[in-house]
C-alpha cells in the first residue's frame, strides 16, 4: 500500500531523498513530468492545460534526530531536527545513517535516579543512543556526527478503522497529492512536494517563487487534541470527525469566502468535515500565500493524534473523506466560476 510505503521511508528534514525518489518514480511511471529544484523540492505537472491552474502541495520531511557527537564510551549524543518533545524519546528503537545502523535511545535507569530526578522528565542532553559498541573508535566506524537518525515504527492498521505509523505528518499529504495528480482531473495541476517544512517552511519559501497558480491547496496531517484532559475549546481537531479545514494558524489567515466554498462542497455531498479549531502551528501556506504578489491558499488536513512523535494515529475514514472532498472540490474548480 502506497501510504504504508511512504510512512516507512526515511525523510527527516534535510534528508528527504528517499521520499522524493519514491514519489518521483511512482509519478513518472504514471507518465507525469517531474523536476527537482535546487533545494530538493519535487515539482510535478499533471499534463493538463486549462485556464485555471492550481497548486497542490505537501511537505515530504518529518521530524527526527541527528548525531551530534560520540562519547569515549561509544555512546552517541544527538540533537533534534524539527519540533520533538524529548519526553517521547527515551527507550525508542532507531536507525542511524545510510547504513541503517540499529540503536536504542537510553537514559539513566530508574534505580540510579535520585528521588528528585524521578520527578523530572529527561532533557535531550541526558539521553544517548546505544548501538552496541564499546568505544568511541568502534562507534566511529559506523556513525559520524551529522548522520540522520530515524525512528523505526512500522505502519500498521489497528482498532476501529485506525492506523498507527510514524511520519503521518506529512506523508498523508504526500499521498493525497500523488493521488490527485494521477487522477487526470480536468484542470492544470502542479504538485509541489516540499522539503524542510519542519525547520521553518524553508522548501516552500523557494518553491513559491517558481510557481504562478490561481489557488494552492496545502495538504497535511495535523494535530489532534481530542484527549480527555484537553478542554473542548482547546482541541484542534477530533479523530473520526472528517477532514479538518483551516481558518487561521500562526502563518496564515485563510480567505473565508474560499473556505466557505470548500465546506459547501462537503455539505452538498454529505462528507463529514470539521474546522481546524485553533490557531496553533503553521504550515507551507504561510509561504505560498505571501510570496511574490500573493496567492490564495486553503489548508485541508487529516487529524492525527500524537504527531511529532515516533507513533501517530489517524482514522482511515477521515483520510478517505479528505480525498473525496478534494476530488469533488477540484472538479468544481475545473468547471469554473468558483475562483
Amino acid at each position: 500500500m502506497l501510504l504504508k510505503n511512504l510512512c516507512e521511508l526515511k525523510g527527516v528534514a534535510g534528508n528527504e531523498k528517499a521520499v522524493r525518489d519514491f514519489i518521483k518514480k511512482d509519478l513518472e511511471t504514471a507518465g507525469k513530468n517531474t523536476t527537482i529544484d535546487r533545494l530538493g523540492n519535487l515539482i510535478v505537472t499533471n499534463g493538463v492545460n486549462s485556464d485555471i491552474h492550481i497548486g497542490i502541495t505537501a511537505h515530504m520531511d518529518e521530524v527526527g534526530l541527528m548525531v551530534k557527537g560520540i562519547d569515549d564510551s561509544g555512546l552517541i549524543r544527538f540533537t533534534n531536527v524539527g519540533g520533538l518533545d524529548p519526553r517521547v524519546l527515551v527507550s525508542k528503537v532507531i536507525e542511524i545513517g545510510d547504513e541503517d545502523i540499529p540503536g536504542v535511545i537510553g537514559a539513566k535507569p530508574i534505580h540510579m535516579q535520585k528521588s528528585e530526578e524521578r520527578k523530572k522528565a529527561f532533557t535531550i542532553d541526558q539521553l544517548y543512543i546505544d548501538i552496541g559498541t564499546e568505544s568511541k573508535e568502534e562507534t566511529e566506524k559506523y556513525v559520524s556526527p551529522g548522520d540522520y537518525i530515524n525512528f523505526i515504527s512500522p505502519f500498521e492498521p489497528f482498532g476501529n478503522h485506525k492506523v498507527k505509523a510514524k511520519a503521518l505528518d506529512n506523508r498523508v499529504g504526500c499521498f493525497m497529492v500523488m493521488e490527485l495528480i494521477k487522477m487526470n482531473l480536468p484542470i492544470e495541476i502542479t504538485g509541489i512536494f516540499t522539503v524542510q517544512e519542519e525547520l521553518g517552511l524553508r522548501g516552500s519559501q523557494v518553491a513559491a517563487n517558481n510557481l504562478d497558480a490561481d489557488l494552492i491547496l496545502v495538504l497535511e496531517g495535523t494535530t489532534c487534541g481530542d484527549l480527555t484532559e484537553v478542554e473542548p475549546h482547546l482541541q484542534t481537531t477530533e479523530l473520526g470527525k472528517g477532514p479538518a479545514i483551516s481558518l487561521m494558524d500562526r502563518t496564515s489567515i485563510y480567505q473565508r469566502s474560499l473556505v466557505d466554498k470548500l465546506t459547501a462542497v462537503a455539505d452538498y455531498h454529505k462528507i463529514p468535515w470539521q474546522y481546524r479549531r485553533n490557531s496553533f502551528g503553521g504550515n507551507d501556506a504561510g509561504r505560498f500565500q505571501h510570496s511574490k504578489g500573493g496567492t490564495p491558499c486553503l489548508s485541508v488536513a487529516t487529524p492525527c493524534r500524537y504527531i511529532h512523535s515516533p507513533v501517530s494515529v489517524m482514522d482511515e475514514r477521515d483520510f478517505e473523506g479528505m480525498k473525496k472532498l478534494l476530488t469533488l472540490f477540484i472538479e468544481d474548480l475545473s468547471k469554473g466560476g468558483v475562483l
Partner: protein
Amino acid sequence: MNKLDVKTLNTLLSTFGPSGNEGAVREFIKSEIEEHVDEVQIDALGNLIARKKGIGKKIMLAGHMDQIGLMVTYIDKEGFLRFTNIGGVSPTISLSQRVVFENGTIGVIGSEHLESVKDLKLDKMYIDIGASSKEEAEKIISIGDVCGYHNPPIIDDLKVISPSLDDRIGCYIMMETIKNLKESPNDLYFVFTVQEELGLRGARTSAYRVEPDIGIAYDVTMTGDTPKARTMSLKMGEGFAIKAKDNSMISHPGLKNHLVKEAKNQNATYQIEVLEFGGTDSGAIHLSKEGVPSSVISIPTRYIHSTCEMVSNKDVLGAINYSTKLLTKEFDF
C-alpha cells in the same frame, strides 16, 4: 487643511475590519478615492492599490486597513463562544469589553473564575452574545467568524478616540493626501494593505507587485508622555513623527534625512521616533526583492491595541499637510 473631515473619519473608524476581513474598509476607501486617482487594483490578498501616475520615481505609500480582533474557535453547549486572537490582543484589556461581529451581533467578553488576575489568559475567556444554547448561538455566529472591539469613535476639537485608529488613521491621512494632491512629479502608489497585524503580510505581496523605488508607511506609534510611562521621547500633540528605527527596520538614512529636510522647509512640527519594539509595513517593503529605501511617518498614539486608542487632531492634520507638500516634490537623496 485645518479641520478633520469628521464624517469620513467617523465612517472609516466605524467600519468592520479585523485582519483577513478588510473587505468593507476596502470598499469604503475605494469609493472615497476612486475619482482622485488614475488606476485602482485589488490584488490576490486583498490589498487596495491606487495609483496616481507620474513620470518620476515610483513611491509606495502604505497604510494598513486591518485592525486586531478575535476569531471564534468553539461554541459550547451553553452558547458561549471561545476564541483565539487575531494580532496582539491583551487579555487584561479585553476583559469586560464589548465586541462586534460583521453581521452586527454584539457580545461581551467574560472570564472563567480565576484565583488571581495574573492567571487571566485568552483561553480562559469567552464571548457572551446572550444566547442560551449552542443551537441558538449557531443561528447567529459560526466558528471562524471574527469580531473586533465595539467602541464607537469620538472625535472632538482636540482628539480622536477609537479602537481602530491603528491604522485607519494612517489610511485617513493617505486618503486626504490623495484628495489634496494636485500635481506630482512622482509615480505614486497608495497601497491600503491587509494583514499587517499578522506580520506585515499584505505589504509583502503588494511591494512585490508594485516594485517601488521608495517606500513610506503611515502608521501609529507609541508615546512616552503619560504618567510614569515607559521612556520614549514622543508626545501626543507635538507633531507627526519621522521614524528612525523600530523592530522591523531602520529607516534608510538618505530618505530619513530627506523627510527631515522637507519638514524643516515646510516649517512643519515634527518629532523623531525611536521605537524599541513593534514594526510597520515598511519592515516588509524595505526587504522586498532587491531592497527598497523605506521610512515611516508615524502618528503618536496613546493606548495602542486597546478599546480607546487616542491621537491628537493637530498631529493628524500636520501629517496630511506635510505629506501633500512632500509628494508634490521630487525625492532627491
